[in-house]
């Protein structure tokens, strides 16, 4: 039974990568650290459990990264996806520090996959965790336990006592029992609020009921809300989230990565009214997959169907749930609950607009439509070979952008612009400082690792003084 009455040096709220990097760094600096993880042990790790890699700067090839990836290119990539909604100083600091993130994680027992040159387009920029995020989380917890860090599972932090930017005590529910915990420094790494449907409803109304939460159901945003309500400065658009095209039949929470569908560029996508609404072939999928969640969220009923034929089925990764399959477009519409006559018209209209070209999956080819609105700019092939397929789609939310403002030492900034005396933040709860919109694959884990280490270092330093 942990001693909840003592005065701890550092309380880390959260149990994902950002939280554990902070806890481990603080413990290595000599602090007595306690981690409050809302989830039970088997579901620990927040959204890190579902991740796979992190994006790391490297001037030369390493055993897990090919070629090189330098600051300017990294910065350009970030600038492009965020459309400039970022903090250049924080972003560049993160990018530079990312060079040392894989080494730190490796010292914590994380195993990386050897670089797979050519097979994955990301193997130049991103280091892959062998076995994925849960294996990483396991390694970090093992390291934390070895360092004597107290880990409280099933422990929800419900309130932080904050007086003029100084946090003193946390109100917890520890395995269902109320408790209070005193500390010298606080690291908030409790994630966003994407699993809090009531909160999402404030911005999205009833549509929020149709959003699937891809990751942990414990991202309720309780600590985020609590801090913002006590004078911490907010950052990021509260209405915005990162979302992908998910299988409509996925579980409403915690369906994870395998629920995403890659079929969009090789299909046409119609909404409930059997209308196309966006160019499915605008760009290669890694550059477009993150916009489709939002696109579907804006459709009536927050649902869509990706329709293709027998020749497309091998162009994308297999799906967990099989697509609807029929020998005619009308029958396929029936299986989807769509208007058969209208779907036949839409497919016929699309087929008539397809120009001849040479199909090349994964690269921008010359298969496109002409005179169609919206157009399909690449990979446009006639949908004519039965059996026809339809994958039902819904928006799958990965994370929200709202966060607490921090400075380059991970210190939380109060609404009046002054830094908090003893509150620090890392991970999704502060990622909005750098990622104002959009997403760069593996960058969330980079932010979590970089800011986790800084937050842990600063929290331990404050506790010592």
């Amino acid at each position, binding site marked *: 039974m942990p001693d909840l009455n003592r005065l701890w040096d550092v309380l880390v709220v959260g149990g994902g990568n950002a939280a554990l990097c902070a806890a481990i760094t603080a413990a290595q600096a000599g602090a007595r650290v306690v981690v409050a993880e809302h989830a039970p042990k088997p579901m620990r790790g927040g959204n890190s459990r579902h991740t*796979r890699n992190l994006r790391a700067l490297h001037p030369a090839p390493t055993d897990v990264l090919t070629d090189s990836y330098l600051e300017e290119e990294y910065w350009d990539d970030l600038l492009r996806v965020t459309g400039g909604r970022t903090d250049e100083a924080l972003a560049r600091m993160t990018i530079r520090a990312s060079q040392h993130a894989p080494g730190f994680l490796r010292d914590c027992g994380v195993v990386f996959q050897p670089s797979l040159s050519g097979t994955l387009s990301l193997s130049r920029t991103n280091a892959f965790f062998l076995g994925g995020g849960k294996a990483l989380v396991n390694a970090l917890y093992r390291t934390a336990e070895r360092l004597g860090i107290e880990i409280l599972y099933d422990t929800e932090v419900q309130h932080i006592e904050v007086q003029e930017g100084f946090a003193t005590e946390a109100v917890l529910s520890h395995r269902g029992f109320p408790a209070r915990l005193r500390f010298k420094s606080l690291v908030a790494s409790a994630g966003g609020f994407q699993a809090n449907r009531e909160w999402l409803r404030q911005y999205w109304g009833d549509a929020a009921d149709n959003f699937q939460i891809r990751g942990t159901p414990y991202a309720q945003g309780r600590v985020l809300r609590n801090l913002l309500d006590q004078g911490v400065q907010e950052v990021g658009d509260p209405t915005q989230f990162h979302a992908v095209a998910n299988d409509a039949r996925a579980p409403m929470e915690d369906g994870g990565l395998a629920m995403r569908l890659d079929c969009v560029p090789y299909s046409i996508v119609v909404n409930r009214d059997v209308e196309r609404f966006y160019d499915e072939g605008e760009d290669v999928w890694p550059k477009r997959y993150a916009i489709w969640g939002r696109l579907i969220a804006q459709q009536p009923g927050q649902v869509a169907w990706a329709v293709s034929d027998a020749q497309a089925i091998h162009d994308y990764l297999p799906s967990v749930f099989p697509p609807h399959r029929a020998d005619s477009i009308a029958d396929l519409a029936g299986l989807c609950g769509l208007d058969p006559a209208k779907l036949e018209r839409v497919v016929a209209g699309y087929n008539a607009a397809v120009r001849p070209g040479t199909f090349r999956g994964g690269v921008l080819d010359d298969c496109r439509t002409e005179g169609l609105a919206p157009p399909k700019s690449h990979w446009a092939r006639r949908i004519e070979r039965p059996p026809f397929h339809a994958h039902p789609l819904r928006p799958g939310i990965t994370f929200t952008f709202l966060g607490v403002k921090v400075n380059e030492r991970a210190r939380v900034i109060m609404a009046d612009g002054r830094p908090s005396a003893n509150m620090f933040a890392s991970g999704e709860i502060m990622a909005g400082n750098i990622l104002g919109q959009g997403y760069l694959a593996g960058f969330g884990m980079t932010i979590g690792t970089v800011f986790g280490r800084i937050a842990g270092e600063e929290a331990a330093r404050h506790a010592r003084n």
Partner: protein
Amino acid sequence: MHATRPAAPETDTVAEARRQMEICNACRYCEGYCAVFPAMAMRRDFTAGDLTHLANLCHSCKGCYHACQYAPPHPFGVNVPATFATLRQEGYATYAWPAPMGRLFERNGTAVSLLAALFAMLAMVVAVAVQDPAVLWSSQTGPGAFYRIIPLWLMNALATSTLGFSVVALAMGGWRYWQATGRGGAAPAGVAPARDAAVDILTLRNLGGGGHGCNDLDDSFAQTRRWLHHAMFYGFLLCFAATTSGAAYHHLFGWTSPHPFWSLPVQLGTWGGVLLCIGTAGLAWVKVVTDPAPVARRLLGGEYAILALLFLVSATGLLLLAVRHTGAMGLMLALHLGLVLAFFVAIPYSKMVHGLYRSLALLRNARERHALRRAKTTQGA
């Protein structure tokens, strides 16, 4: 074309394995662990034969379980090591020859234990019943000491008939498995794949996880099972070499056992026996202390039983060496030979068959890997 070829049967376990592989094939986070996941990724649809092949490719290293975001208590409940272990066992039963003997896999721990007890008892009873007590209980020394307890012709007859039967049964089982799982797939045979498969078998590459090891005990990485299995496997081979060299001594050079301690057969047998004891005891210990979640508990009885039998075979062999100049030699020899015969008979109807099916699966996998590499090279050219 092959309409009469027997197909692997559809069972609940096959359906469950298919459900899990369809999740894994959309996720693919585990592609770096072992041969199973790249082999899975070559496929989109999974026939019962494919799944049986993948199950036999699995070495139960459990890396994929501890890394799985869909492992219980997630509702998807993905547990590939336990599901594949159950599917392997179903295959052992399905392809056993003669077919009715497959039922021995249902309560395999009991079956193997009873077999061992029966043979050990019979051997001792027969030795006591037919042998002159004056010979059986007195110390025997000099050339032919063992054969004064049990005549050489009888030893040879019993060993040859039991082992011979087992080899035939194994071969028939392997043939039936190969046929039903698709005759090694479409990929062509060749020397290079066979060489790769041999390396995989002899080094247990798939228990190495690329150098950092497997999740032997919990979610930490270790090579414990790999080294223990090596001790057992190579200990077994040393014992086999001891028997072979003993036969050569006898038939080629006319040197009759017991041989001196420093002779080749005794040295090979001693070190082989020591390694076998370490390997089998160690593997049993791993089974006791490991995280039980990714383990198919229903199969543990049979696994413990065959490890115990192998341990007893080697331990009685070592004891026989220790007491061979005393009056206890007679009974120890009978006990040892009884257990050896029980082991020979148990080979096709116990966990021992995994060696054959795993090797066939590795061979097929090596062929598929070579074919894929060739296809990629052709594409790139």
